[in-house]
């Protein structure tokens, strides 16, 4: 693997639409004169939201807006893998396949995508409706396996729930994000098994002296056992 390259086919031009231009101006205004370059990440994000991906004309346009050389913008765009440097589908599925998710069955999630959409990692459907990539740890290991679709996390996936999600997106719906098995955020799936005590009651006082004496006794016994000649 080498550094991510810009897509071969590029649109001829790029300009922010009115909505994103207003947002961009607001971000640029946050920084003092001469430090506009600090706004490069938000602007790249706006460009990606507008176009679906970061195009070469967008990189150059942002460079011109922020008084930066195009190569400086390209450095940032290639550093962060969240910036797509080639076109993605309208529904962009990012499946985490790092260790925790892999152990909890991200392979099934990938398989569901393959079966339902015919997509392997890095593919895009011919009608540009769906695309799929593998990503490194999405930071939601406790709810593994997880996939990011658009801006939302869909957690505790398996083959069936992934297929259901894809069907919903195909119908143009906006399925509810979060845990697919009804967990409340990252709370345990069943009943709580720790911290079950009543938090309002005082913690019972421990007999530290007795605990220490027991520890010392065990230590002395172990030492005596080690020192005893082997029979």
């Amino acid at each position, binding site marked *: *693997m*080498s*550094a*991510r390259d*810009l897509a071969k086919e590029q649109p001829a031009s790029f300009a922010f639409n009115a909505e994103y231009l207003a947002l961009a101006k607001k971000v640029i205004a946050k920084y003092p004169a001469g430090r506009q370059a600090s706004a490069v990440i938000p602007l790249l994000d706006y460009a990606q939201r507008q176009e679906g991906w970061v195009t*070469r004309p967008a990189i150059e346009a942002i460079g011109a807006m922020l008084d930066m*050389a*195009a*190569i*400086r913008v*390209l*450095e940032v765009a*290639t*550093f962060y893998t969240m910036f797509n440097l080639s076109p993605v589908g309208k529904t962009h599925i990012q499946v985490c396949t790092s260790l925790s998710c892999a152990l909890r069955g991200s392979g099934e999630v990938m398989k569901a995508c393959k079966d339902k959409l015919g997509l392997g990692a890095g593919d895009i459907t011919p009608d540009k409706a769906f695309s799929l990539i593998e990503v490194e740890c999405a930071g939601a290991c406790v709810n593994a396996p997880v996939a990011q679709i658009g801006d939302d996390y869909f957690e505790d996936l398996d083959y069936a729930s992934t297929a259901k999600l894809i069907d919903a997106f195909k119908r143009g719906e906006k399925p509810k994000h979060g845990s697919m098995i009804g967990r409340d955020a990252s709370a345990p799936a069943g009943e709580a098994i720790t911290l079950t005590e009543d938090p309002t009651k005082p913690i019972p006082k421990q007999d530290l002296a007795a605990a220490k004496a027991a520890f010392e006794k065990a230590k002395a016994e172990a030492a005596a056992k080690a020192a005893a000649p082997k029979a």
Partner: protein
Amino acid sequence: MPKLTIDGMAVEVPANATILQAAEQVGVEIPRFCYHERLSIAGNCRMCLVDVEKSPKPVASCAMPVAEGMVVHTRSDRANKARAGVMEFLLINHPLDCPICDQGGECDLQDQAMAYGADRGRFHENKRAVKDKELGPLVATSMTRCIHCTRCVRFATEVAGVPELGAVGRGENMEITNYLENMLTSELSGNVVDLCPVGALTNKPYAFGGRPWELRKTESIDVMDAVGTNIRVDAREQKVMRVLPRIHEDVNEEWLADKSRQACDGLSNQRLDRPYVRKNGKLTEATWPEAFAAITAKVRGLPGSKIAAIAGDLCDAESMFALKGLMTALGSANLDCRQDGAALDALSRASYLFNSTIAGIEQADALLIIGSNPRTEAPILNARIRKRFLRGGFPVGVIGPDVPLTYKTQNLGNSADILSQIASGAHAFAATLKNVKKPMLIVGQGALARADGAAILSVAREIADACGLVKDGWNGFNVLHTAAARVGGLDLGFVPGTGGKDVRGILDGAGKGEIEVVYLLGADEIDTNKLGKAFVIYQGHHGDRGAHRADVILPGAAYTEKDGLYVNTEGRVQQALRAVFPPGQAREDWTIVRALSESLGKTLPYDNLAQLRAALRDAAPEFVKIDVIQAATWGGFGKAGQVSATPFEYPVKNYYMTDPISRASRTMARCTEEFVMGGAKKTGTDG
């Protein structure tokens, strides 16, 4: 001034110094790759890790400021282990192809791996491979060797002022690249080769040309522009293999312009290696006595007013001095060293020097550039202007065509009458100059080599006087020359004597038949068609314009083949040394003039270089001290006249070809094709 201890030695350094700088002060060597004293601090190679007491981890000494009472160990077990670890990581993805790498023998990674590395690695997986980048005809790339020190990126962005290089991707996939495979468009691009601590960026024309230990190194002076860059000429046998910069803080720091570095292959092409005499309209090979006989037959008995001499741009002071002596002996006052007809006044030294000095640019507060494009006329000097610009508070006004100079300029227009407005104070930029402590102006040959050049020089002087450019301890009046020989020629008075003709007069006279013999000492930049029926003697090293027109050719030595004195645009006398011998029957230039003088019966009174230099110093005391600038007395020049409204044109149209050597260079031809003509499309049969 914090005091700290490094390896048991106490040292006191300025508060903003880093540990690495403090260590250098006490002579403790700390290995490094990314740190370079002329570039910003990156701190990304980690090779300079040292052990600091009370610090939980080894610290990167290049980026760590010193603090009072710090105790640093650079040779402790922890420091050694940290270095060995960093080295092991660097070598994980380094190909270890030293036997076929051009950097071998002068490679920082090689040296430091020997000094600080382990003797084996523990990495058994596949190494990565990186696609090579196309940086143009001067810099070859082998990016798999890159260790990502980012020196080249910082050089391009900071010093060269062309932010075209960058590091894309991250982690193991990081690559140094140029934006969208464009070439590196800088006149200083060759310096990234010197900066690269490994063999990722190497000298393309010199590729696989030699090993550093095979080369004979001679310290010399560059003549491709008037900066007088200090160079080291590396030669093998009788061939100049490459040219590298030497450090001279007041001239070139440690940079070298591309033409000066890469035109050296022109020294082996198109050379004049034997005398020629024109017989029946054809130049035929001749011996030295035959050539001298042909000249003697023509010159003997001719009155001095019918003889003229023009000195070229690459001449050493000795040959010009000898030729001046010969012309005086022949009774001729028709001498000129200003091929382009620049209106320079040889009588007032301050009128033709870069009085602020190159290092002095860093003290200036405002700059007015008149008819000069320093980026192509003197890239090294331009880098110094950029260095000053980056510190801020440095308005730069330009009168001339608007071209990118790598720093922000204010184009005041392109008409000579703006000058008079500034002089009279009517123009806004006059206030900019007046309101700062150390203003300066640069007059280029684009302004002086015109019919109204003398008037422009005079107006420039008026500006200097009116806007306070000249005061105690500061002279902000500067002339930027394009020819290495120019200041030397003016210093020793290679200009028309009483009643003598200048270049225009000589060419006119030759056309009309008033001048019958013209002696061209390496003069190729004149319009040789205007020489009419004159008998032309060409003494030089390349078969260029002058030699084509010549009736007698005397083969001389190029700058790498003779000991010579050159005076740079600041008036700094510098000595070039011979690196190789002239080819064939070619001889050092002053000896040719000396031999000819004997043949003409006007024997010059010196038999060796020491005697000649003694005579030269008697005649022109500027040459007494080498590498010392004698400040010139201000005033005593300028003839007011009518300034025409013709727009300025910059003298250097194609940076890569300005003199016979660079015109004979294949590398420079390639650069011209790529950079100036916009890169012709290559066909399948190319090269």
